[in-house]
């Protein structure tokens, strides 16, 4: 089943311009698990009749993993090329479901000539609900469920966004349970700083296992995240403990899409 989504090129060809660009990101475009998050978000955007577009094949890696790996050249090559595309389409506002893209676009692109209003998808979802554009159905999907939220480092500590995802979870008919390390004290999932793309250095434990233990301690039924990489790491952690049947790892966008019967 294909999903309706328009590209910036389409829109420009028909003389339209979207209110907001959805920056899908590499994970959201190529990773099988993250693609589901992308689709959940698009369903919500379509349902709420948000006038948005994606770059499609014109999108390219923001350069975040290159920069965190120490390769500033590759980062800036990517950044300058992306900025040329974004400025070419006169993009003003961007939403993304990836905190790494979010951080880079919001904080590191302005110095290179790309200044946009950048928000994380949890902030957009919060806004859609607050303005009455999105109503959650009373379908009991999450009734009696316990949900814990894993703070992505690049959303939380890096950019001080702690409330939006929590406000959304509280809108569900479920209980939000916090891990002992949360918000500013949240423990990394182990994927940041380009670690996602390499083996961990020698140690006595994997970071995602340590973090999954924090999550399991809450006896939550769902581990909610707001980052495709955290999602991968926590899902691997849950598999490690063979808890796939009892505990699901889901993005906030998926939770909201389910609760809105989309």
């Amino acid at each position, binding site marked *: *089943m*294909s*999903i*309706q*989504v328009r590209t910036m090129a389409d829109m420009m060809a028909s003389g339209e311009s979207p209110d907001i660009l959805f920056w*899908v990101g*590499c994970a*959201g*475009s*190529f*990773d099988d698990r993250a*693609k589901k998050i992308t*689709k959940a978000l698009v369903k919500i955007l379509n349902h709420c009749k948000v006038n948005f577009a994606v770059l*499609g*094949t014109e999108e*390219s*890696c923001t*350069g975040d*993993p*290159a920069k*965190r*790996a*120490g*390769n*500033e*050249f*590759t980062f*800036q*090559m*990517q950044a*300058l*090329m992306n900025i040329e595309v974004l400025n070419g389409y006169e993009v003003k506002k961007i939403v993304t479901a990836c905190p790494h893209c979010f*951080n880079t676009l919001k*904080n*590191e692109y302005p*110095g290179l000539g790309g200044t946009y209003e950048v928000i994380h998808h949890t902030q957009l979802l919060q806004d859609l609900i607050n303005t009455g554009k999105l109503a959650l159905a009373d379908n009991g999907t999450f009734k009696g469920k316990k949900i814990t939220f894993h703070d992505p*480092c*690049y959303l939380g*500590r*890096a*950019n001080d966004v702690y409330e939006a995802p929590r406000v959304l979870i509280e809108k569900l008919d479920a209980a939000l349970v916090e891990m002992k390390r949360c918000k*500013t*004290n949240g423990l*990394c999932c*182990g*994927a940041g*700083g*380009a670690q*996602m*793309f*390499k*083996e*961990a*250095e*020698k*140690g006595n*434990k994997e*970071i995602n296992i*340590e*973090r999954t233990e924090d999550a399991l301690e809450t006896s939550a039924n769902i581990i909610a995240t707001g980052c495709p990489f955290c999602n991968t790491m926590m899902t691997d952690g849950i598999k490690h403990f063979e808890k796939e049947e009892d505990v699901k790892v889901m993005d906030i966008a998926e939770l909201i899409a389910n609760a809105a019967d989309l």
Partner: protein
Amino acid sequence: MHQLIFSVLTLVSFGFFAFNLRKIAQNIHMGLPLDRADRKADRWRTMLLVALGQKKMFTRPIPALLHLSLYAAFVITQIELVEILVDGISGSHRFFQDSLGGFYTFMISFIEILSVLAFIGTIAFLARRNMLKLPRLSMNELVGWPTLDANLILVFELILLSFIFTMNGADEVLRQQVNQTNGFAISSWFGPLLFGGITDTHTLHVLEQLGWWGHILMVYTFMNYLPYSKHLHIFMAFPNTFYSKLDPKGQFTNMQSVTNEVKLMLDPNADPYASPTADAVPSRFGAKDVTDLTWKNLMDAYSCTECGRCTSACPANSTGKLLSPRKIMMDTRDRMVELGDYKRKNGADTDDGKSLLGNYITEEELWACTSCNACVQECPVNIDPLAIIMDLRRFLVMEESKVPTELTGMLTNIENNGAPWQFAATDRLNWANED
């Protein structure tokens, strides 16, 4: 005679302290320039909250309260030091007592109460460090001098406080012998408890003088010990928080030197054979040694009191990896002092052939970092170990091409197809048409 000895001692102490402060300033200035003169109001606010107000300490309330007792006692006792200086130079005894009257009694009482709290706090810190063996206070990087340093500071504090009570206690007993009292909150009863059995006025005078001289000697010793110790944080916390990074923690610097090169590469009109302008070529990309770091990175290193909150919050460290953000800061300081001393001896343009990366910090430590900012978040004086880690990584990658193999693949993928994985850019929108 006393006044002469005191004056000479005071001059020598402050002189030597100034001499060492100058060295510290010189060492910090070995760093690269960085503009942190903007947003003054935000900077003052940060300093007042974080340094003066100890805001970040209170995420762990018990050590915060113990620390606060030492900190408050230290700050308030400085007021008494004014009188000690006046008495020492003029030969007077409690110069301000008569003119200030009740306020004087209040101030000294306040200092005495804080001193008792500080004494308890110091004992608790010694016990925690040496008996409780808190993990973050008994790690490898603290073996030897750092542990001795920490204990010395605490012992100095105990001696200092003991002298204060010897001085005030003996003075009180002397007063009571002529049916008077200083009326200070602690010494008015603690003095007689300690020295009440002594009736000989001369012995009491000697004790009082011992306390007075002991106190000031310890103050001068302590002051001149600071530049060699992690305890320098009591001063450095203030400028260091003032010059904090005020941008979002996730925002890393964009290297201007790289921007220049990349713009040349992307500009079809650029002349590849044009001779580069003098300022276009930096000495190196990223940091190999302390001279490649900014002055703020170096100030950070001098501000670190090795509490280890960064390391205890570090996901890499808590899962057994080699990385410890505290060690990064300790290494940076040790290397800076080593190089600074070398340059002062052999000339500013000389180099001892050693470097921070390699001689102090290993690649394995750097590659363990997830850039999660937990260390930055935790630091009670806003030190940024991550900035140093990233600059050292940049040198490894851009100057030495020392990249972990898997990351080479990731970087190649980004360069070739605009994604960290091997997917074609043309397939980027396929998700919209898949199940």
